[in-house]
């Protein structure tokens, strides 16, 4: 007995130390990313980031954004659409003979159900459907959508994963409803958190929060069958562990990178890097107001209300050092809050570092020796893999060179956003991520004194607001581009929002992974990926 237990202990210790012999079964793709943003996987409720990738894999939208040209909208389960003369009515025609993973046919009724449910859930992503006034099923394959007012960006909006088409029969079976009071009566969320009811190439089969999301191949998919039998999305905390796991071959692909590690990844013959042009912007915001928004607030110390001071700050930042040094060139920046690649964005107008000019502007504004008392507020985050703390330290050093003394105040992002929203911040570094790819995704939020970051920073410029409105509702593409460029230049002059980083999305993967294509909305398309050399 004694010998037996001793043997057992030795065996146990041996397994603990050497680990199991892992049997290689079916082909599984492992994608490591941060899944801690996931709250729900019900497309009607989810409004985070990782869910977009999952929803794109498990559901279909009527239209898609072309992977080759992001400004082009291409057919998906809808063959196409027609817009009425007045721009109010869109008619979508579905492809014939398509089925959901369940085997149910995809019909116009499913489109109506999905979007009506989205509207009536009154969840965080419901605002995508705000422009819709009415949805009418014409026949099995035709659906007519009437808008409240002309909205040229509508086709682009339909490509966002929240507007996915759900299998109405399955959703209703699990407690879903599109009724007016769906916000209270719809109970499908719990089921949709763990399963999917879509027609995408993969089927969601499980989600363990903070650990993993599992997708399996949809054998009923209407396109060619996906290459992988299973896709596992693994939760990882940071680039450190993700890249170590990648190098050891424990995972296949990750979006966690640190710009300084990319050179090492490239030096490893087993690994390669894919670059995606992301439209995420990280910007400095400088309030043109003399004091916080709340009435009776003490005025701020630093004179950012002087336009020349704001311009001086914009001229002091060492953009090249940040982009080429800290981000190792894996980033670029536009002139204003219209990312490169978006209609009307023109980088030639952007600020470049010019210390002399900055000092001259400060002198003109009456501060030849600079000033102190400026607080730079930041949240948590790491644009392009460089932590906010590091970027803030760089900005502090850059501004010190022109005589502006800055202290950094870092807060958890939720506090930071609370303060920002309450118009309490004078000088801050924050980010903006798009949900769809129309220029209104930026101009709606950075222009009007009563909406979005423009409200929070107390920007009140008639020129900017007017140009934003004109451009948004302009239907002629060339005139629209022209208007957006004017809009951008007005922003440059005002120097309230100064974009610093438009980081590229860097994906590191094993060399045998092929067919990766980045998309700025849903990021990664598991369907297009295959493993070579099997």
């Amino acid at each position, binding site marked *: 007995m004694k010998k037996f237990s001793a043997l057992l202990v030795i065996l146990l210790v041996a397994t603990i130390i050497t680990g199991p012999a892992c049997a290689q079964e079916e082909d599984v793709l492992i994608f490591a990313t941060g899944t801690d943003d996931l709250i729900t996987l019900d497309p009607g409720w989810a409004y985070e980031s990782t869910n977009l990738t999952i929803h794109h894999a498990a559901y279909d939208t009527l239209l898609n954004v072309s992977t080759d040209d992001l400004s082009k909208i291409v057919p998906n389960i809808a063959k196409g659409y027609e817009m009425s003369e007045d721009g109010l009515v869109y008619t979508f025609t579905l492809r014939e003979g398509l089925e959901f993973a369940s085997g149910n046919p995809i019909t116009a009724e499913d489109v109506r159900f999905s979007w009506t449910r989205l509207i009536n859930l009154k969840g965080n992503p419901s605002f995508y459907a705000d422009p819709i006034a009415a949805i009418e099923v014409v026949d099995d394959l035709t659906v007519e959508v009437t808008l409240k007012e002309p909205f040229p960006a509508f086709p682009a909006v339909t490509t966002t994963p929240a507007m996915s088409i759900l299998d109405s029969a399955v959703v209703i079976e699990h407690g879903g409803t599109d009724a007016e009071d769906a916000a209270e009566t719809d109970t499908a969320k719990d089921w949709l958190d763990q399963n999917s009811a879509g027609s995408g190439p993969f089927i969601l089969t499980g989600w363990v929060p903070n650990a993993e999301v599992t997708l399996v191949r949809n054998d009923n998919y209407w396109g060619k069958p996906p290459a992988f039998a299973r896709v596992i999305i693994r939760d990882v905390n*940071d*680039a*450190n562990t993700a*890249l*170590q796991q990648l190098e050891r071959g424990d995972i296949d692909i990750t979006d966690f990178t*640190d710009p*300084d*590690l990319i050179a*090492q990844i490239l030096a490893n013959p087993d690994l390669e890097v894919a670059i995606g042009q992301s439209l995420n912007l990280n910007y400095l915001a400088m309030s043109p107001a003399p004091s916080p928004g709340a009435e009776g607030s003490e005025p701020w110390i630093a004179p950012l209300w002087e336009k020349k001071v704001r311009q001086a700050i914009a001229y002091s930042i*060492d953009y090249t*050092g940040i982009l080429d*040094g*800290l981000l190792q060139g894996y980033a670029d920046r536009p002139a204003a809050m219209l990312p490169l690649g978006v209609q009307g964005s023109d980088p030639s107008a952007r600020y470049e570092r010019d210390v002399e000019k900055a000092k001259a502007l400060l002198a003109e504004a009456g501060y030849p020796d600079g000033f102190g008392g400026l607080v730079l507020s930041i949240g*948590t985050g790491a644009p392009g*893999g*460089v*932590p906010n*703390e*590091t970027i*803030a*330290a*760089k900005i*502090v*050093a850059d501004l010190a060179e022109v005589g502006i003394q800055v*202290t*950094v*105040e*870092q*807060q*958890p992002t939720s*506090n930071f956003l609370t303060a920002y929203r309450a118009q309490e911040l004078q000088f801050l570094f924050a980010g903006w991520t798009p949900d769809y790819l129309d220029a209104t995704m930026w101009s709606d939020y950075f222009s009007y004194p009563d909406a979005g970051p423009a409200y929070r920073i107390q920007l009140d410029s008639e020129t900017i607001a007017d140009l934003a409105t004109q451009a948004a509702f302009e239907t002629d593409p060339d005139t629209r581009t022209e208007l957006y460029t004017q809009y951008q230049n007005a922003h440059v002059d005002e120097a309230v929002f100064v974009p610093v980083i438009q980081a590229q999305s860097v994906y590191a993967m094993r060399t045998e992974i092929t067919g990766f294509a980045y998309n700025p909305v849903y990021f990664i398309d598991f369907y297009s990926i295959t493993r070579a050399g099997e």
Partner: protein
Amino acid sequence: MSETSLSTTPIDENIRPRSGEWRRSLRIHVRKYPIFWIGVIILAVWVLVVLFAPQIAPYDPLEQSLSDRLEPPSALHPFGTDELGRDIFSRVVYGAQISLPTSFIVVIVSVLVGSALGAVSGFMGGFVGGVIMRVADVTLAFPSIVLALAISAFLGPSLTNAAIAACIVVWPSYARLMRSQVMVVRSFDYVTAARSIGAPEGQILVRHVLPNSWTPIIVTAALDVGNIILLVSALSFLGLGVAPPTPEWGAMISLGRTKFYQWWLATFPGLAILTVIFGSNLLSEGLREWLDPTI
């Protein structure tokens, strides 16, 4: 207690001058309590680093130079440079100016507040005493890092708030120690006698309680110097401590950890934390050996 161990050693008093006598007893003391002395030396070195940081550090810890970023350790930069080209050696040295004084202040405040409250609770008993001990018990029911995390999350990240969180976490152990000492001393006959002739409570405290209770308190305090450095750097590591660009060890490890090819970024601040905690552990163990030979 210490005097006995020193004076029992034979001293050749006729030849040696008094300073030699002192040196010799010191040598014997060192030989008898090496752990204590290793701890003292490690911490003394760090205290010197704190005092002479500007003389020791070859560079300004905030000075950036992007052209020299991520340089490996060399004669020019003994610990290498970080992602902004700052000298890591200088940052580690200046980091001591953040961590050590914070830790000392927290320990001193906690010892004063904790033992005062403990003494009050012990002497007064009743409702107030009960409430104080209840609060102390509640606080002790939480693992320190969890409570500190919650407190500094609510207060917002800053060095001051991290220190406040550390104080809140640490004071109850001193309150308990002091209270139990007071309870013991109170039951002594001579204290009861002193009370019966109307000696004020404060006088009893100073005359009888304090001399008896400082041993366990100082042993715990020595240990807490390291614990608090660990706590504060852990909070900074999680982004709930010191604001950038202040050189703080925990924050340096946090920013350096993704660059594992540039191992020097996280290694040296980690070693700094390790040595301080090790020194404080040794000091505490040594003090216990020396002052409280019953264990």
